[in-house]
């Protein structure tokens, strides 16, 4: 058995407009040293998938910079490895160059690459799936049940607001999908939600793509799955570990804070034996804490220098916290520089932000204050 992977890098970009202004959802920084795509990529690599295509749409420079040759994920390979598939713009363009908005349209746009896949199975994953899932087991489940398509699902409790932003999957006791409801407006209760990680048999995927081109289908759920339930073998695969996806800026902040407030979350993401999460290596020095440093309940990456106070915060690589500064409930991205006697509360600082001495900035847990990339205050 061998499998290839496809990751959608721009899916859900508009959920967090601040963070995706200059980058793809896939390259949104998360958890001190990662970019969101690291989770999807690591899940694939840890399941021996060594042929991964990343479908991009726009704003993908930061993503290309992050991935580089792919060697940090062991995906710099002579055969296979990682491949970025940017939008295909034909010369002498006319109206055929409109960019896609859905997964199915994305797949149609990379039809040629898909037609060249020789692996028997294809794992399709969104880029904002923060989880550590054993895809090998999922593929095995797919094969054992002779499925055409297997969706990873997780049972969660949904209130009305949550239900509105999720895809609910109903299945029988055998695991066969019986119905799929996208974004129901008045659902409340326990349900299996679609994790946007799918396994498809390669031939079936190729068929679906060609069929969609021929019929101008645009939605995988509506035009393919719902039409063929009962005719094709669509199944669910239940995943019970930690899972988060980013539906809003608030979600981003809450999921980040879960990392420091819940040990179990860290264990389920980072603590699984032989399934580490890989990311771009920066060769930063280890972090230094000065004699005056006071740090509580925080996650801190390498390369930082901490001379002040940090509490309930997530500090990315190369950040400096000056003397007398107090940082609480913050997320400070790579190379943030805070001078002396700075006070920050509920602030998200994007890359390379400089906060000069004696500044006092505060947001609220329900509305974190966001500082855009390279801002100087």
């Amino acid at each position, binding site marked *: 058995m061998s499998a290839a992977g496809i990751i959608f890098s721009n899916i859900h970009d508009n959920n967090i407009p601040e963070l995706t202004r200059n980058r793809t959802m896939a390259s949104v920084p998360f958890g*001190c040293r990662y970019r969101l795509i690291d989770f999807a990529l690591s899940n694939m690599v840890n399941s021996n998938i060594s042929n991964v295509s990343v479908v991009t749409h726009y704003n993908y420079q930061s993503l290309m910079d992050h991935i580089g040759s792919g060697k940090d994920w062991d995906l710099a390979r002579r055969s296979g490895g990682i491949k970025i598939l940017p939008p295909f713009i034909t010369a002498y363009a006319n109206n055929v160059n409109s960019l896609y908005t859905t997964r199915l349209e994305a797949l149609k746009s990379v039809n040629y690459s898909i037609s060249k896949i020789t692996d028997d199975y294809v794992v399709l994953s969104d880029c904002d799936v923060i989880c550590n899932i054993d895809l090998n087991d999922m593929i095995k489940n797919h094969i054992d049940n002779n499925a055409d398509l297997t969706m990873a699902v997780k049972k969660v409790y949904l209130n009305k607001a949550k239900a509105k932003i999720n895809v609910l999957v109903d299945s029988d006791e055998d695991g066969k999908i019986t119905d799929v409801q996208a974004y129901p407006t008045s659902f409340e209760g326990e349900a299996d939600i679609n994790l946007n990680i799918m396994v498809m048999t390669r031939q079936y995927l190729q068929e679906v793509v060609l069929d969609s081109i021929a019929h101008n289908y645009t939605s995988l759920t509506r035009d393919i799955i719902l039409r063929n339930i009962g005719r094709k073998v669509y199944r669910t695969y239940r995943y019970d570990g930690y899972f988060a996806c980013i539906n809003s800026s608030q979600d981003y902040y809450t999921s980040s804070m879960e990392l420091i407030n819940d040990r179990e979350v860290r264990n389920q993401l980072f603590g699984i034996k032989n399934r580490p999460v890989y990311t771009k290596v920066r060769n930063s020095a*280890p972090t230094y804490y000065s004699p005056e440093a006071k740090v509580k309940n925080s996650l*801190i990456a390498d390369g930082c220098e901490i001379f002040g106070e*940090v509490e309930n915060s997530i500090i990315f690589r190369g950040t400096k916290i000056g003397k007398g500064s107090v940082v609480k409930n913050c997320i400070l991205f790579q190379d943030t520089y805070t001078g002396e006697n700075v006070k920050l509360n509920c602030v998200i600082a994007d890359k390379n932000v400089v906060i000069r001495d004696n500044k006092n900035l505060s947001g609220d847990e329900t509305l974190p204050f966001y500082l855009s990339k390279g801002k100087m205050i």
Partner: protein
Amino acid sequence: MFKKKECVAMLLAGGQGSRLYALTEKTAKPAVTFGGKYRIIDFPMSNCVNSGINTVGVLTQYQPLVLNEYIGNGQPWDLDRMSGGVMVLPPYQGKNGADWYKGTANAIYQNLDFIRRYAPDYVLILSGDHIYKMDYNAMLQDHKNTGADCTIAVLEVPLSEASRFGIMVTDETRKITEFQEKPKNPISTKASMGIYIFSTKVLEKYLIDDENTPGSSNDFGKNIIPNMLNDGMKLYAYPFEGYWKDVGTISSLWEANMDLLGEKPEFNVHDKKWRIFSRNYAAPPHYIGKEATVSDSIISEGCEIQGKVEHSVLSSGVIVEKGAIVKDSVIMSGTVIKAGANVNYSIIDSDSVISENAKVGEERELAKGIAVIGSGLCVEKGVAIASDAMINDDSVDGVSAIEK
């Protein structure tokens, strides 16, 4: 056809490091952990790469397993190259039999074929035992400018310590007039750092001559350099200023680790223009708990700190549980300090466990020496380990080996 290189570096990494005792029980000295996430060999390797030297032969001999695995294909240092890159060079069996590396000069002699493949004009000889940042390219330019046959990097040392080093006596043009190996009455304070640049032809000639001299120790300091001086060759001293530390003993290794601490540390590894590269193990960021206190310390990726850490250097994946105290110590990767344990003025090697309420070492002011615990050992509950103890196996009461 191999691409010609201007300069090839030969890194002597066969040293046993016997004065590091328990720490080099299973690994060669260059592979000993340093400064949280580094190994000693990362420093000369990173210096090479930062100096634009991309062909490095690493000569190994003693316990090479960990070192070989660590170097791998050289990818962490960008030394996985089409031509050149890093190459591990162990002793081998040749047509005329097999030989261990008998001395530093013999080690290079046995690998002359490796050097010849790249037809370099210059050969840089390094050792894998020192912690420092140095631009070898600047030294190479100096070597070319002076037209020397050999350039030796030297460091000013206090006269009182000069008798521990090979001492160079130079004239006003930095030309070496006399060399004294560990002299009783030194007349100069320029100590050799064990870093040499040779013009290749000269090096070849002297290595071959030395090999054919019966009774030679086959050593650069003892044989090659004195022979060249006797023959009136042009040897120049290249002055190095900055941090340089031989980490050959437990106390110097401890000191070098502590030199990384402080607001303006003696030795700065945060310099983004001269990064120190190392192999990365994909550990998550480190977590500092609600009741933890961390001060004047270095913490690496993957650590989880719930207790108290003071004036210490922690490598990746170290766990310090609630109520545990780590002070004035160096803790290597994967070691667990359990609740209530107390570690003072110690070096603890990787993957060991200090159990609940155990005590290792003494307050620095009261201690007789640095306590050292080897790799993969468990100090059992409530056991106290003396301040100058050197523990490398489970033969001591209260210490057991951890099954892998």
